[in-house]
């Protein structure tokens, strides 16, 4: 319950934050929903926390040049309820609504969740399906990586010491696109046993675009490429959903815990994948 001692800094600007992080011994604190519980269990013991929660220009949701830019400290609650996202990138709102519980959604941030890279967190599935970009701020300026490249492994990203996730960029979705985030919840922790995010676009009754991101299943979130390919150019019917769903877990070395073995996890991914595809198809115009 009681953390180790640490020092605390609360910069007002991103530049100041980057300066504070430059010595490498500090850790970024955003909403703290992952970090603080770990510190309370003494599994994490940073020497210094740099609280970026008050940096005003990290909290925004805005549309620019055909894309939606999301500041790192935007909370899950903000994402869940943003009218802009709800109309132009509803997959992300739907995903945010599945995270934790109302109190966690009030405090937890997009940037914090993404940087923590929990293999059972919700966003990675959607950010992969959305082909999102991550803008990383560092001492020598910003760099942008695709979200797929951002996640390296369980709890591991390309973030270097001293860097901060500045923003996430997601595309403006065509209003005719179908989407779905389907999640099997671990009943104790609320994390995803499996989470599947879908974006589908139909053209003339055939599937013109399909993006599927999967979280919770493996050591890191991934794109279900085989399932996407199976959908592409196929007809938008329930059989297609089932066939493609069956491919979602192909070749996956699945995780296990008290609630789901690897085999069952893979099975859930297939079943819920098919269900997610069916929902997304029904939403697509």
């Amino acid at each position, binding site marked *: 319950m009681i953390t180790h001692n640490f020092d605390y800094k609360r910069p007002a600007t991103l530049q100041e934050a980057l300066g504070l992080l430059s010595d490498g011994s500090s850790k970024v604190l955003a909403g703290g929903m992952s970090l603080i519980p770990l510190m309370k269990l003494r*599994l994490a*013991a940073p020497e210094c926390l740099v609280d970026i929660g008050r940096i005003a220009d990290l909290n925004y949701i805005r549309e620019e040049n055909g894309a939606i830019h999301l500041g790192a400290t935007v909370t899950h609650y903000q994402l869940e309820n943003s009218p802009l996202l709800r109309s132009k990138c509803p997959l992300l709102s739907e995903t945010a609504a599945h995270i934790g519980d109302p109190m966690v959604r009030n405090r937890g941030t997009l940037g914090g969740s993404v940087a923590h890279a929990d293999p059972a967190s919700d966003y990675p599935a959607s950010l992969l399906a959305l082909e999102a970009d991550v803008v990383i701020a560092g001492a020598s300026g910003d760099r942008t990586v695709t979200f797929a490249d951002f996640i390296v492994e369980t*709890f*591991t990203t390309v973030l270097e010491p001293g860097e901060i996730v500045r923003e996430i960029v997601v595309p403006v979705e065509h209003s005719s696109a179908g989407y779905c985030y389907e999640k099997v919840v671990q009943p104790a922790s609320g994390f995803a046993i499996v989470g599947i995010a879908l974006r589908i676009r139909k053209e003339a009754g055939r599937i013109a675009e399909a993006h599927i991101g999967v979280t919770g299943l493996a050591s890191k979130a991934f794109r279900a490429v085989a399932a996407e390919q199976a959908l592409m150019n196929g007809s938008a019917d329930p059989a297609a959903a089932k066939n493609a769903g069956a491919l979602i877990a192909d070749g996956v070395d699945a*995780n*296990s815990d*008290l609630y789901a073995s690897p085999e069952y996890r893979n099975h859930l991914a297939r079943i819920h994948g098919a269900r997610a595809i069916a929902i997304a198809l029904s939403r697509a115009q």
Partner: protein
Amino acid sequence: MKIAGTHSLPVPQQRAYEVLQDPVILARCMPGCDRLEKVGEDSYEMKMKMLIASISGLFDGKVRIADKTPFTSFRLIVEGTGKIGFLKGDGLLTLTPNEGGTEVRFDGDVHVGGTIASVGQRLMDTTSKMMIKRFFDKLASEVSS
């Protein structure tokens, strides 16, 4: 927890067998290994700093090599004790030649106790696999360089 897997090393079987027991190389490849000191025949002590994103822990560890059947198999026993818990991995490594070099099969048991066992259940499997993968990836790059 049972854990098994297969990894490839781009060197011939005999070389693979040797590097897998070379304390200098082991020290470089074992995730978080700070220092490895020989304390006896095939027996070492080490300091480990486990770092998985925010999670960190210092461990006093021991490494032991046993049941050696030169070039085909041996047992690797790794133990670590720290404030956040303790862990013990006991695995049989079996080496067989494959086209690119050597296939190393790992069959073992991982025992974990303390805080990491009581609250980390959800992630035990994933992280154990990841640590082993890191070890072999690092080893592969060490031996090929």
